[in-house]
């Protein structure tokens, strides 16, 4: 009980109020994240509507196999994150630590595969700027597509990196047995964030990789 009393910050009446505030705070933060990514999704929508052919053509230069692998990796990481939250609710410290490490590992796999893809784009001169090279009449709007590709996946990858960092902090606290069935809000709200970042990828993958797949 001493543990849960120290977890209560002085300006709250009780743990229930504190949990409610943290949870609402994270949901509102995710709303701001939707608006943040929303600007990019709007830019994507407008530009794809303007240049449908170029976007389809440029999209074929992305590696669908790697993208699909990454999608699977992230979905698995969402499962392990959900299991981590469940373990924290039950107070199973070892299971919590295990699932957090798995989730971090899967997130890192995602980032490594993303890095491989980026390196590949560099080699093939598909990074916007002076070195950009794309044959055919659609070269200019294709550069636009890759501008959006790097902006959107780059921002997403940044969120993944932050997410892995947050999970590391959770891991440290879990290691020190700070979480209990009474107090595990940080695990819960971090889980919300992790699922959000996954969902963004679930939208990015078809929008960027699968535009032209039906042909």
């Amino acid at each position, binding site marked *: 009980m001493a543990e849960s009393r120290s977890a209560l910050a002085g300006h709250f009446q009780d743990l229930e109020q504190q949990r409610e505030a943290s949870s609402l705070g994270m949901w509102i933060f995710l709303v*701001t994240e939707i*608006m*943040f990514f929303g600007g*990019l999704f709007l830019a994507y929508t407008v530009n794809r509507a303007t*240049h449908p052919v170029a976007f389809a053509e440029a999209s074929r230069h992305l590696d669908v196999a790697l993208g699909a692998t990454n999608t699977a990796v992230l979905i698995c990481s969402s499962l392990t994150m959900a299991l981590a939250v469940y373990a924290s609710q039950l107070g199973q410290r070892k299971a919590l630590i295990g699932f957090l490490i798995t989730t971090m590992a899967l997130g890192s796999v995602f980032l490594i595969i993303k890095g491989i893809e980026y390196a590949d784009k560099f080699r093939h001169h598909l990074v916007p700027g*002076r070195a950009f090279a794309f044959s055919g009449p659609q070269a200019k709007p294709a550069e636009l597509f890759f501008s*959006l590709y790097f902006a959107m996946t780059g921002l997403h990858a940044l969120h993944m990196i932050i997410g892995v960092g947050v999970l590391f902090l959770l891991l440290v606290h879990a290691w020190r047995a700070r979480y209990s069935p009474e107090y595990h809000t940080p695990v819960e709200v971090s889980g919300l964030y992790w699922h959000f970042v996954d969902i963004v990828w679930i939208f990015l993958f078809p929008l960027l990789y699968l535009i032209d797949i039906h042909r």
Partner: protein
Amino acid sequence: MNAPAPVARISHPNYLNVSYGVRSWLLTTDHKRIGLLYLVSITLFFFLGGAFAVLIRLNLLTPQGDLVQAETYNKLFTMHGVIMIFFFLIPSIPAVLGNFLIPLMIGAKDLAFPRLNLASWYIFNLGGIFTLYAVTSGGVDTGWTFYTPYSSLYSNTHVVPTVVGIFITGFSSILTGLNFIVTIHTMRAPGMTWFRLPIFVWSHYATSLIFILGTPVIAITLALVGVERIFHLGIFNPALGGDPLLFQHLFWFYSHPAVYIMVLPAMGVTTELIATFARKNLFGYSFVAAASLGMAVIGFLVWGHHMFVAGQSVYAAMIFSILSYLVAIPSAVKVFNWMATLYRGSVSWDTPMLYGLGFIGLFVIGGLTGLFLAALGLNVHVHDTYFVIAHFHYIMVGGAVMGYLGGLHYWWPKISGRLYSEPLARFSAIVLFVGFNLTFFPQFILGYLGMPRRYHAYPPEFQVLNVLSTAGASILGIGYLLPMIYLIWSMRYGPVAGANPWPATGLEWQTPSPPPPQNFQTTPEVTWEPYDFAGRKDLKLPSPGLAELRPAAED
């Protein structure tokens, strides 16, 4: 000569005397101290932005623009706009007064996330440092609007540090808004139901909605301008088939609602002032509360009225025009409710009330000229002229800054525990009102006659009105300097205010001035309705309010 009366000491434990030293301030998580930290930061930015305004007005004294060259002038108005909007007006009332008062008004010990609140202040200053770097290393010349492709491809000035500064500062707004919303939802004292909240809290709730829904959009938009310059991505680059107009849509999607970020809190302050100094229950409480939310919602649907001549479709323009007119409805609801509150109230003319009434007058002028600008035909005639400049200064300076100063004067006894010199404060309120109108009313005429904005020189026939405007600006400057002097003076030498000097009904006046670190000795329990001046015998109003006499008078 009489010996000066000894200055009374305030000895009860309060947030100012609980601890001393720089560390105790820089590491504080007390919302009241953080409010004061913001007060210091934004005051510095206000006078910096004001210095640019002084240079602009001095340059416009002569038609040839003798003081600075055109390029310098471009930088002056850009940095005036950037600093005043992002580093003064947007944080002004929410970050200073909102921070200080919201927990007090709802009977909480602090905001829901005190450390996040302190982090917001550091984030704000970090963004400010980037912007100051841009200012001191040569400035930026794109206008505060950063229109592409000029900002992303052509300008040779310090666009990147400026947009990075605004990007970072945006997160301080987002986190402040998040903190307010969570606090208002989860931290209210027992009995403090939604419809017992002061209108100040309602308007901050509406403002926070704009913070969290709008600010991320400007953040990503300016980030894209930055990466276009640094990494040569081409999302707004027409040479790649990108759309520069998309930038304007995204920019105004935030920057129009940003006007409501500035004016909604000022309306909240004004509502408190009108009710307190009319000593009467607020007329139409629920309508005023709903109008705040209505303005926040409709405010998100009108951004296209900044783009009537930018090549948007005529049908879009018509819809944006109609929606812009709709904003007039909640605005008018508020003005009429203030009028109805004043009607047969026992009005007193204390300094905050002068600011409150000044706000109403100037806001009405600014709002009605906004309707001119929302009209498709007239907009083309006055687009990008001084008419627009005058209109938005009536809203932002006449509205938001009057509200901010009114609120600062009203809650100053609560913040500092002391009273300022009332005659001097009234005098400076009047100076400010006169100076403001003399500065900006001539600009309506200038704009209507066709003087475009953002030019460092102008035809000689406009000189008389420009000289009037500059003369007004110097009076306005005095009106800003005076409060700074006597408010600082009062912190040490002012008479002790007591808990409820006006008196007013809000929960923040139930606790000693300055409030103790935990705000209230025990968690208050709210059993009364807001603004119930007639029913609150504990206030001991100096004379019976007319509100109490009315039933007898009507018999």
